[in-house]
């Protein structure tokens, strides 16, 4: 017992020595040269990442603590951002938009995540039995390769009162309130969210489809033989089997929804629509920095947004790094 423990420690020490000596071996020894060469594998990537990603991230955090005159203000910029009606504007709810950027991002997640996820999942399941499924997938996936800025521009051709098909559709079935153009404050946000579902559903469809090919069909056949209902099969067989895919889809979707920028820019303007009805955090940052030149506030918005993305990722990151 004791002996094996000593042996274990010795083995550990030996391994540690082997590892460190790769880097601190004697000068000119083959080991040291080898270690130097190995550094060459990493250095170009680390140089570019540190200079153009790592340093800017830290510098942005720094900028977020200073006001427009270069005066250190601590967390005041964060207080201003979170206290501003640009960010959160729900006094007297229920009320018409704008609700503020943070709330709009939250609404975006609340509607877009379940819609795109379940639609993609359901399609992936159904398409296993459909002839020409590859064509259906391709049609739905085109949204994923379309530049998001053009996705935004296309919203005009979908929701505009004169040339859009959606208002026309609601007019033809007699729903008056949705029959005029959707690019007005009350409907803009929801129009863009549905538009983004249209663009993004391809992602969950492809991920679930790929995942399903790795799961044997016997699971569903067994459930069928046991006489399980459709709902029960879904909750007890399908959904648990698809969990790894769901983790990926949920993470990537939340990141996408938090970072959304081009779509709103293309569909409206840098102002996030009439009175900011569809304004989002990323757009708010752009406007603060490059329209109003208030870098401190802009950096605070960016840092806050990054914190949200880190929280979303931290839970799932370990699933994405292959051991």
């Amino acid at each position: 017992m004791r002996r094996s423990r000593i042996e274990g420690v010795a083995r550990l020490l030996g391994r540690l020595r082997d590892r460190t000596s790769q880097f601190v071996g004697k000068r000119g020894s083959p080991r040291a040269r080898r270690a130097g060469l190995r550094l060459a594998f990493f250095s170009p990537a680390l140089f570019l990442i540190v200079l153009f990603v790592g340093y800017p991230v830290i510098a942005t955090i720094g900028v977020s603590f200073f006001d427009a005159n270069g005066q250190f203000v601590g967390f005041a910029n964060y207080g201003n951002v979170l206290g501003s009606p640009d960010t959160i504007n729900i006094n007297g709810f229920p009320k018409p938009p704008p609700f503020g950027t943070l709330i709009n991002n939250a609404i975006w997640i609340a509607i877009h995540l379940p819609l795109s996820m379940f639609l993609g999942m359901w399609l992936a399941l159904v398409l296993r039995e459909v002839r020409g499924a590859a064509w259906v997938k391709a049609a739905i996936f085109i949204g994923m390769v379309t530049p998001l800025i053009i996705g935004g521009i296309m919203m005009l051709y979908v929701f505009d009162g004169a040339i859009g098909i959606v208002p026309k559709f609601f007019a033809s079935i007699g729903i008056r309130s949705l029959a005029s153009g959707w690019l007005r404050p009350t409907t803009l946000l929801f129009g863009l969210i549905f538009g983004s579902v249209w663009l993004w559903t391809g992602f969950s469809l492809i991920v679930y489809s790929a995942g399903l090919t790795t799961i044997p069909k016997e699971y569903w056949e067994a459930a069928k033989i046991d006489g399980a209902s459709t709902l029960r099969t879904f909750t007890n067989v399908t959904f648990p089997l698809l969990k790894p895919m769901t983790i990926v889809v949920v993470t990537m979707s939340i990141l996408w929804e938090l970072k959304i920028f081009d779509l709103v820019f293309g569909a409206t303007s840098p102002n996030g629509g009439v009175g900011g009805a569809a304004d989002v955090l990323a757009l708010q940052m752009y406007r603060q920095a490059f329209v109003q030149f208030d870098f401190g506030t802009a950096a605070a918005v960016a840092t806050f947004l990054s914190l949200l993305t880190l929280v979303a990722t931290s839970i799932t990151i370990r699933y994405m790094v292959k051991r």
Partner: protein
Amino acid sequence: MVRLRLRTIVIHLFAWGLAIGWLFPFVGLTMAAFRPLPEIVGGWWNFDPFTPSFTKFVSAFNSISFGFRNSFLIAVPATIIPMFVATLAGYGFARFSFPIRDYVFLTVVLLMTIPQQMVAIPIFRIMVSLNLENTLVSLVLLHSAWGLPWIVLFMRNFFSALPKDVEEAARVDGASDLKVFFKIVLPMALPALAAVAVLQFMWVWNDFFFSLLLCPANPSCMTATVALIHTIGKFEFDPGLLAAGSLLVMLVPVGLYVLLQKFYIRGMIGWTVKG
């Protein structure tokens, strides 16, 4: 039996109907691009009269052709550089061990999740101080660096799944790390690199925020996506012209997807789902 067939028919009708419905926005855009404005106000689904023409594509291309040139000049090097650099690093992370390796790797991966806005202000200042604002080089550098985290992760996962036998045999025969990498590893990685190339090229081509940040109004570096908004969207607003320009800009990524679908999907899946 009959019930089963009915179910199959319903599923097919629904799936095919959905696919066609999904394409409607593209049809609307195409109609607006091909037909004169009076024909589409009132609805592109009215085909009386129907007089399609290419004139809007011609004038849209003439007003943003410089954007296409710039986007290619940025996207090609901004695909090749990070691919090569990240493959080296990805291989290193998969094969060499050193004390803080996993922490360095995790940090790199976490950078993948950061929004572009998080680097915007310092990047702008760096480019100004390097005298690179309003140049193609600035966008090549930024996109190269920005693509690195996901390509490093992708390639590292690829190499981790690759058996080591061949490499080890070569090492026993006295080949150096670099020789092993260039002669043995790189050729095996070609399919993965093809997937990376398609995805990275498409992301750079489709990018809007960085292009707007580093070159908002200068024709010598303005990308196609920015030119679309800046040139066609801003002045003489013509929905037909905007639609034609949008279709032209889209043509590149959609065409790539159609031609290289296999690699694109493989890249997308490998990047997110392990296995």
